[in-house]
């Protein structure tokens, strides 16, 4: 398996994407912002296709769309908490925009014919080049370090925003910064597992970690480990059975881990998140 360069590339990039998704996902779940992650994953799709239509770099479009989208969602959600409806309305429209871009793109390029859209939606981890891997590794390291730097105040702000604000923690800035980081990770993970599936890497390992432990640092670590393990197992499965697409296998593994954690902890003490009500 390791003899193939595309598998080495996939494993290397997947490992780092897994770490970044696991760490960021832990906070996404803690802050009950999974729906924002859902929205960002669809924005990634629209951004990439928009860039393709304009003849720009697809990856640049992806990053632009998700980071700007993260900040817009942060602004939408700040006035009233849990404004899922505003987020939903916004991203339902970006989906329509994505459909427009897709139709322009598929009619203008005779060769591309829809597969570009499919690749953006579902990823192509086995098609990553050496340069792609270097980019995604460096971005993963960047986001992980940035997240761990703000982990303590962010944890405080997430668990009890009111008390944190009273203590002088910049709750609002942290929230916006976190969503921008989430956007960065979303764009990165889109390249690996696709825009539609990155939600699984954000929500499932972190959800499992939250169910297993209420200690935040142990939870962060566990979430990252589970995400990386999902990537490895998923890639191995896909290598062993080539008809199974790698992104599906990765997500299926992550969700299986979540279901196991759920089954093992039913009826046990409640996870950290219950403070948020």
């Amino acid at each position, binding site marked *: 398996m390791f003899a193939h360069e595309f598998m080495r590339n996939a494993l290397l990039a997947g490992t780092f994407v897994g770490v970044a998704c696991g760490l960021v996902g832990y906070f996404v*779940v*803690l*802050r*009950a*912002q*999974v*729906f924002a*992650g*859902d929205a960002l994953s669809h924005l990634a799709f629209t951004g990439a296709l928009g860039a393709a239509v304009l003849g720009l770099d697809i990856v640049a479009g992806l990053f632009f769309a998700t980071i700007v989208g993260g900040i817009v969602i942060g602004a939408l959600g700040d006035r009233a908490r*849990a404004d*899922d*409806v*505003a*987020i*939903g*309305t916004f991203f*339902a*429209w970006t*989906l*329509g*925009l994505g*459909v*427009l871009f*897709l*139709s322009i793109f*598929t*009619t203008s390029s005779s060769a591309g014919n*829809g597969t570009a*859209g*499919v690749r953006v*939606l*579902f990823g192509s981890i086995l098609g990553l080049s050496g340069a792609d891997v270097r980019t995604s590794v460096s971005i993963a390291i960047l986001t992980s370090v940035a997240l761990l730097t703000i982990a303590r105040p962010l944890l405080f702000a997430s668990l009890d925003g009111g008390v944190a604000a009273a203590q002088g923690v910049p709750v609002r800035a942290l929230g916006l910064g976190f969503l921008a980081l989430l956007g960065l990770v979303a764009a990165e993970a889109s390249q690996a597992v*696709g825009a*539609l*599936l990155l*939600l*699984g890497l954000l*929500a*499932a390992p*972190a*959800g499992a970690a*939250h169910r297993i432990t209420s200690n935040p640092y142990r939870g962060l670590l566990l979430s990252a480990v589970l995400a990386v393990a999902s990537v490895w197992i998923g890639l191995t499965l896909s290598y062993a059975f080539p*008809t*199974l*697409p790698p*992104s*599906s*296998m*990765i997500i*299926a593994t*992550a*969700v299986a881990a*979540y279901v196991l954690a*759920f089954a093992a902890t039913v009826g046990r003490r*409640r*996870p950290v*998140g*219950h403070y*948020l*009500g």
Partner: protein
Amino acid sequence: MAELTVAQGLTWNLWSDVQELFSYPFMVNAMEAGTIVAVMAGVTGWFMVLRRQAFAGHTLSVIAFPGAAAATLAGLPVAVGYFAFCGLGALSLAGISGSNRSHSAESAAIGSLQALALALGFLFVGLYHGLLTGLDSLLFGTFLGITRDQVLVLLVVAAVAVLLVAIAARPLYFASVDADVARAGGVPVRLLGLGFLLVLGLSVAATSQITGAVLVFALLVTPAATAHQITSRPVLGVALSVAIALAVTWLGLALAYYSVYPVGFYVTSLAFGLYLAVRITRVAVRRRRATGLPAAAAA
């Protein structure tokens, strides 16, 4: 798309344009299907927004995609896959909201369910070679090529869904606005929640055959969100939600007929444009009232 070439193009005579629109059977079918879908989505969407279940609604609409793919793979009619998967999805969502007390744990579970649905969908598509060209229409739908049978099935499903919501409307409204008080008043809150998710799944399954799995959500959430911005009165709100859904669907279909761009783009953009306009007007009105009232009081 071949049928589109028969279009004469837009003329200055609006009436003859509309007549031309209805001279093609496929457009008549599309308009009828669109009308049914809009009424159903307007009604169920209004309660979905009231209950703050946008994430659950979106997850249900995503679940339609593996349903269609699985049915194609098994050689069954696509409709069977839609209804089976959306029904199962509604049951799982009800189970999730029953077993997770905190909002964050619930959203993690819903997110995992949605990701699993997408992973399965892509897996089924991968197993069924040759469907890749059909993937776009599974995800994004097509208003063209709707048959009479589909319109009839849609009509029956919509009638059932709207009737069920109408029967349960009062207790459902009560349970959605204040679950604790409703429970104390003897309203079966959990049963209503499950029933509503099943109706939502039913309407999503029927709608996604026409609009595709991805765009159902736009019709569910946007007209309803706009109606909630305008009024909080239930009967008026549902009526407004339906009216907006109808208007954007009809206009979107007509625009798509006279251009090369997809209907999904027009419907979502019209709906979102209206939502933005209403929100901005509301903010402006509130600001004028806030600055106007003290002056009036002083005078």
